[in-house]
């Protein structure tokens, strides 16, 4: 112990040996270079300066402000403002151009589709799904079957005024009678109509029930859905001959539809979003592959 208290000098190098010893190997007490010390001091000074200049010290409900007044929120605000300036020209062009007049291959349309994609993720995915594939009662926006028309202008009109949206005079309304609930048809007649619809949509073969259903269809349904059952877009009446079904094409779903009718609702986005965003949404939905 007492040996370690004394300063030992290594004979070969003339440098002091410190007290550490491992298996007879001792460590030279080589001093650090002075520049290292000064670098360390410089780091401390830098850190102190940083604490003064930038927000650094957490208090109970806030943090120290820093003399520069810099905040990450302020930085974000600045970046948002500059992004706003950068897209101002595009936004103006979109506001000035009617949706159907935008050249489909132009950069403006590409910008509109990208903007619509972002707006769709915020406003539309709750009902139509993130891939716009919809689900029962919520139309698949990728397919080529459109209740109210699938060109840019019609999509835009549907988006702007909504479906059965109160408070919008131009909203799109289709009213299918509740044939069963309102006792317009008996339960047996409804089954005959369903048989006929299953026949025209090539899901079931011709039967006696379908034959009776054909007459019932002509009397009750053809007004809206057409004598050929191919629907009518001005009335929002779906095409019943294709394999695409909003509420299902199986017997049970069709029976429920004819008995109680269907009346889905979509908000009038013209009331909630700015006109440019609605246009961008229309462009995006049109670009999904089913646009006409």
């Amino acid at each position: 112990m007492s040996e370690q208290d004394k300063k030992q000098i290594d004979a070969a190098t003339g440098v002091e040996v410190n007290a550490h010893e491992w298996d007879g190997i001792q460590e030279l007490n080589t001093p650090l270079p002075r520049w290292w010390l000064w670098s360390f001091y410089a780091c401390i000074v830098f850190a102190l300066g940083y604490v003064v200049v930038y927000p650094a010290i957490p208090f109970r409900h806030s943090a120290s402000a820093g003399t520069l007044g810099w905040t990450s929120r302020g930085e974000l605000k600045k970046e948002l403002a500059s992004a706003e300036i950068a897209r101002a020209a595009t936004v103006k062009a979109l506001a000035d151009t009617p949706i159907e007049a935008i050249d489909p291959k132009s950069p403006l349309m590409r910008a509109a589709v990208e903007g619509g994609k972002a707006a769709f993720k915020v406003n539309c995915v709750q009902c139509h799904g993130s891939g716009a594939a919809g689900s029962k009662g919520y139309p698949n926006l990728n397919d080529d079957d459109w209740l109210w028309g699938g060109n840019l202008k019609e999509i835009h009109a549907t988006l702007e005024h909504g479906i059965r949206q109160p408070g919008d005079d131009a909203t799109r309304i289709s009213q299918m009678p509740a044939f069963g609930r309102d006792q317009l048809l008996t339960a047996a007649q409804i089954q005959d109509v369903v048989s006929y619809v299953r026949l025209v949509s090539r899901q079931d073969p011709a039967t006696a029930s379908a034959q009776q259903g054909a007459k019932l269809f002509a009397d009750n349904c053809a007004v809206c859905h057409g004598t050929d059952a191919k629907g009518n877009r001005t009335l929002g009446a779906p095409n019943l001959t294709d394999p695409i079904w909003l509420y299902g094409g199986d017997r049970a779903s069709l029976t429920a539809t004819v008995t109680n009718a269907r009346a889905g609702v979509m908000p009038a986005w013209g009331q909630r979003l700015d006109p440019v965003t609605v246009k961008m949404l229309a462009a995006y939905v049109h670009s999904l592959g089913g646009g006409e």
Partner: protein
Amino acid sequence: MSNHANRTGKAGGLYARRPDIFPRAVDGFYRRLKWAVMAATLAVYYVTPWIRWDRGPYAPNQAVLVDLANRRFYFFAIEIWPHEFYYVAGLLVMAGIGLFLLTATVGRAWCGYACPQTVWTDLFLHIERMIDGDRNAQMRLRNAPLSVTKVAKRVSKHSAWLAVGVLTGGAWIFYFADAPTLLRAFVTGTAAPVAYSTVALLTATTYVFGGWMREQVCIYMCPWPRIQSAMLDERSLIVTYKDWRGEPRSHGIKRTEGVPTGDCIDCNACVQVCPTGIDIRNGPQLACITCALCIDACDDMMARIGRPRGLIDYATFEDCEEERKGAPPVPIRRTILRSRTFLYFGGWAAIGIAMAIMLGARTRLDLSVGQERNPLYVQLSDGSVRNAYTVKVRNMETRPRPVRISIEGLPGALVWDSLSEESTAAQSLTLTVAPDQVERRRLYVRAPRTGPQPADFRFRVTALDPQGGGDDDAARFDRPETLR
């Protein structure tokens, strides 16, 4: 005794002051070699960004350009895209193996001649000598009281060092933007802030590292001295003091007195010229960067006292031992040709050749296809099924290229893109990809309801210009499991 104690200052204490080093000017073969290497490396550094290279209207005309904003690297005729960054990784591996090769062959030649720290320190030392004079004058000036001359000399020395620093940092930024444009913007104060901050930072580091830190960077900061001891073996060239010839030293002893003396006259010339302040006569050591200035100094001295040159010389440890036993000195070239250097050279060359072959064979038109999975497929009103794909066509040539995208192996399939109507669906579609750009398109493929589930097929891109070429990528087509 030793130099080590001198190096670390007074024993004891936690922090050691840097001992002042005033390397004396020296002339000789290695000094001239050092001048030549310095001139060559500085010329490469300063001139490279100013070389022009005509790439046509769609790409910059600077031979060497790191275009970070557009993520392109230009190196003469070679253009590197970010996804080809493995070429840079390959160059770094070659640099690493090259350093091994150099070290195993000629010792720390990199450190002594080509390392930027050495080159700029050497430049700074030269500037110092031009202003303050050589070693003795510098020492006198250090000890002299403050005077107008001293202040003037100090101010001009540090100004010159700072000027070199500005030029160093100033040259660096030209690698990252069009040099003439940037120079004009830089001088008129309209360049990007990052240009000014880069120059400021590099000025500061050059001034501090070249003027103040010098050998301390090599001794304390650089990892290579630690690694190089593992790279050296008894057949590597190092700067050695032949103690069997030099000892005992004959300082102050007349050779005629009959006392046995070696060739070393203890004149300390080798210590005075050393830029890292070591005494090579203490044997190989970490702080030696093998710049060989001590060889020049010693050879000069040996010539004066009429003894053969080479008391301090480049030699391998093995040859040194042979020489001690009486063998004649071995020519330097012998150490270069041996299995270890061949091995390193083989690895180095293999990577270089592989990269050259890859560069020559790489296609400049590239296709990648990603299937949209949300939704996986769409049922269409006529009963057919549609899938969507995001297709990226990279045109790595610096001119626009018309290409055709077609489908192979999916019977009855038609394709169209999201910018067109479905009525344009056809078996292929053509588009023009802008020069040096990636064209990203959403493509729709419609196929009959029946068929394998899933169906594997390929997209193919074919260049329609005379140069031709193309690429293909696998994709799959999904259909509903059950008939609705």
